[in-house]
């Protein structure tokens, strides 16, 4: 079917007509119509400042560093360094599952903060930080590292957390790592990912050695899987069945001990490109370890990814990989047979972080659903480049889409499902539109891997086809 680009452009024009001239010009550059033939990165301008005064979905560098990259690392203590709020809001709200005894092997469910008060702002907090680290070391002697995540005030008052970290590393004998992820840095979470990656590069990578006796040609590391609802575990299952040996998983259910020896692996497998391409590139440049992107959402993409990864290895792995694909095919067909008739042709609108707006498209397509618009909170050019080919022509693509635009777009595209975050969830549900949180899997999951697809399919069905939606209009108004 020919795509009516004019019609799609009209929709966008109509929505942004409400803005002042300046804001309109700004937003126009961030919303595009997908055209595989002509356009890659040009579909939407990205990674620039949000407009003040609009409900942007974006978070901050601290959220990217603490919440995304470092937070899931289970054997270290993350200190939210500064006032009380940031640590409170990011406490247990990302669903990075981690195995291990809490307070001994696993600190993921904790909220550690230096809880800055006025006097700390006035006189500086370096002494307090030093004291805090000593206390932590005494109370949690098995922690394998302490990560200092700066909140806004730290950079503004000129504290020297690097000096404190250095002194404390020497004193307590475990890595104490400063992360300059003040929330005002950059334009979104994205810079926080980069800052956290750099801190890992500078303070962790290469600090340990893989046990040579245990080395195999099939040693790999997974990068950019945060184990939301158990994603890492359902992905590991597949890698294991393929015959690969996952030495480290960054950073869901991960550990600093694994990170230290990761440079001993043969290949890096990268799921969330946006948040960990930096460290992947570092491994490639410094240690010559190649990395490859994969997508474990939905059987079509999983199959493609398995084959792509298997090609890196010898025939034994390739054979096993084909067996894996074959073994899961009946189960996947069963899932599709069950849910596809219930979801066929349903329209989905997405607004998620830096990976899922493109990575999940295939999983929806496996279920016969159609992504009619997709949007990123904090993507860059290279993300849009990767997005264009995943989408059909005519799909609306938006960068840093704010709530007004999202609602207006939904009013025009009439989706059957909106897939986004907690801030958006109840907006669309009030409109009577089924919704799934696609950051947290709406407290479900995993969604990665073959096991995850079954849950994904069930969840999309229970959202779209829940009988509860039929009662939105009162019977007397039918």
């Amino acid at each position, binding site marked *: 079917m020919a795509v009516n680009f004019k019609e799609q452009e009209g929709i966008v024009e109509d929505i942004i007509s409400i803005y002042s001239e300046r804001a309109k010009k700004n937003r126009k550059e961030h919303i595009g119509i997908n055209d595989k033939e002509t356009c890659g990165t040009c579909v939407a301008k990205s990674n620039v400042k949000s407009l003040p005064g*609009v409900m942007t979905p*974006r978070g901050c560098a601290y959220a990217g560093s603490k919440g995304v990259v470092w937070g899931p690392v289970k054997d270290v203590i993350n200190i939210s360094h500064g006032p009380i709020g940031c640590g409170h*809001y990011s406490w247990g709200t990302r669903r990075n599952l981690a195995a291990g005894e809490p307070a001994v092997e696993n600190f993921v469910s*904790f909220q550690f903060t230096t809880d800055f008060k006025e006097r700390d702002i006035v006189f500086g907090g370096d002494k307090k930080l030093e004291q805090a680290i000593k206390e932590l070391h005494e109370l949690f002697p098995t922690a394998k590292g302490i990560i200092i995540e700066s909140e806004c005030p730290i950079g503004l008052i000129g504290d020297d957390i690097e000096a404190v970290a250095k002194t404390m590393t020497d004193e307590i004998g475990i890595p104490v790592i400063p992360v300059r992820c003040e929330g005002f840095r950059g334009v979104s979470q994205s810079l926080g990912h980069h800052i956290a990656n750099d801190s890992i590069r500078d303070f962790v990578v290469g600090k340990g050695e893989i046990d040579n006796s245990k080395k195999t040609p099939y040693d790999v590391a997974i990068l950019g899987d945060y184990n939301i609802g158990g994603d890492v575990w359902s992905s590991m299952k597949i890698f294991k069945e393929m015959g690969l040996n996952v030495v480290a998983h960054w950073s869901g259910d991960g550990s600093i001990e694994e990170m230290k020896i990761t440079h001993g692996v043969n290949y890096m497998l990268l799921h969330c490109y946006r948040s960990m391409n930096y460290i992947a590139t570092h491994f490639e440049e410094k240690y010559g370890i190649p990395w490859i992107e994969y997508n474990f959402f939905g059987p079509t993409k999983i199959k493609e990814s398995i084959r792509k990864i298997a090609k890196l290895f010898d025939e034994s792995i390739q054979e096993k990989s084909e067996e894996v694909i074959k073994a899961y095919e009946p189960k996947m067909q069963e899932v599709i047979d069950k849910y596809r008739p219930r979801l066929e042709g349903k329209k989905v609108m997405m607004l998620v972080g830096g990976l899922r707006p493109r990575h999940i498209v295939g999983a929806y397509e496996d279920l016969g659903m159609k992504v009619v618009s997709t949007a990123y909170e904090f993507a860059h050019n290279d993300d849009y480049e990767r997005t264009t080919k995943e989408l059909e022509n005519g799909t609306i693509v938006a960068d840093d889409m704010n709530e007004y635009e999202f609602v207006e777009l939904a009013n025009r595209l009439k989706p059957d499902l909106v897939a986004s975050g907690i801030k958006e969830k109840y907006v669309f549900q009030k409109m*009577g539109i089924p919704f799934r949180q696609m950051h947290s899997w709406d407290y479900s999951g995993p969604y990665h891997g073959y096991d995850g697809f079954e849950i994904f399919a069930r969840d999309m069905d229970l959202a779209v086809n829940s009988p509860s939606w039929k009662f939105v209009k009162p019977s007397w108004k039918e």
Partner: protein
Amino acid sequence: MEREEVKKIKDWMNTEEYKEKNFNRKSIVINPERACQPLGAVLCAAGFEDTMPFVHGSHGCVAYYRNSLSRHFREPIAAVCTSLTEDGAVFGGQANGFEGFKNATALYKPKMFAVSTTCMSEIIGDDLGSIVGNAREKGHLSEDILAPYANTPSFVGSHLEGYDNMLNAIIETLGKKTDAVRTDIINIIPGFDTTVGNINEAKRILKIFGINYLVLADYSNTLDSPLNGEYKLYPDGATKLEDVKNCVNNKATIAMQKYSTKKTSAMLAEKFGQDVRVVKSPVGINYTDEFLMTLSEISGKEVPKEIEDERGKAIDSMTDAQQYIHGKKFAIFGDPDMLTGLTGYLLEMGGIPKYVLCSNGTEEFKKEIEALFAAYSENEGEVYIDKDLWHLRSLVMTSPVDMLLGPSHGKFVAREAKVPHIRIGYPIFDRVNIHRYPIYGYTGVINLTTWIVNKFLDVLDDISDDAHFELMR
């Protein structure tokens, strides 16, 4: 790690020695049940008609407040910010403020911006008064849109002060004293109360009393709005701005929390000469009685028979169930006013509020709880201020309790202590609809008793062997 080694460390963490170490720490705070000021400001703003919370700071902060409140209420939370970035730190945030007002006006057409601050805008020294004034002068902010502003630094106090500062600013800015005789309306300030059921219960009582009232910061409808196919950015039922103007001429004000209304209460009394009564949050029989008597005194109306009957039914529910609470030990945590109420209720039931722990409590609060213990000759009760849930863990692991009452974050302590945990307060992220049920009033007494006792009975059934798995409890 070896399992044995893990167990050894875990056992050590349950000792008196560890507890002492834990209580000696001065600089690290571990699992505090306390959020920051701007969250309270955003909540407060949600209670006013067509009002957009406008936070001067980075958008990460606002994303966090919206997330947190949305998770608790399971409702949309609107708020905008000035999206400050690094150059704001250098040049100040006025330009972002201007653009923010302009864009937010175009998109959201509010009648009022409730302007608050964050760490960043406080530290760089931005002056809200001049930003708002200059924005008006230069035409970025229409004269038709109200813009009360409050300083809400995150490094002072907690969400309670943020709520108070914002409410104070809104009433002080909008309030217009007239010479006319005072109305018969009584202002009700709920305070930072995320149990919408409490606000609804207070309103229900006032209606039965036949008292004209005005709830100030009424988000009982905006944060519990009907799902009817239409998304309203500003849902119906918030406090009307016209009513806020006149509220200072109303007969009296009742603040239903003390620690989240200090500034506002003082302002209303001092600046507007209002009869301000700060009551104990009406949790349990005594404090509900006191609340009703305050209403009776101010309104000159007797406590209605209907409510007296409700009281009798609540007492009935208590006496029916008291044997299951009597002598049981509780650890309770959360915001101070709620804790005072819960302490009173537990004592009324013969329960032992063994640990009352408040991460944002003051000396005044501590004395209040101690006075309650004394009134009931309760020798086992202990009250802790400025302490966190890791302290609470040490307490319950060294000298155990039977149940925890408090927000969701306590679930990790409850799990280690292997005791049940009833969710009350803010935030509740892991149970549905709890915030719709009041703990206020006689209705609240029945709800609390129902939750607590039935939870104990569920546990009893779960742990009973076949012989003791009985029909009757």
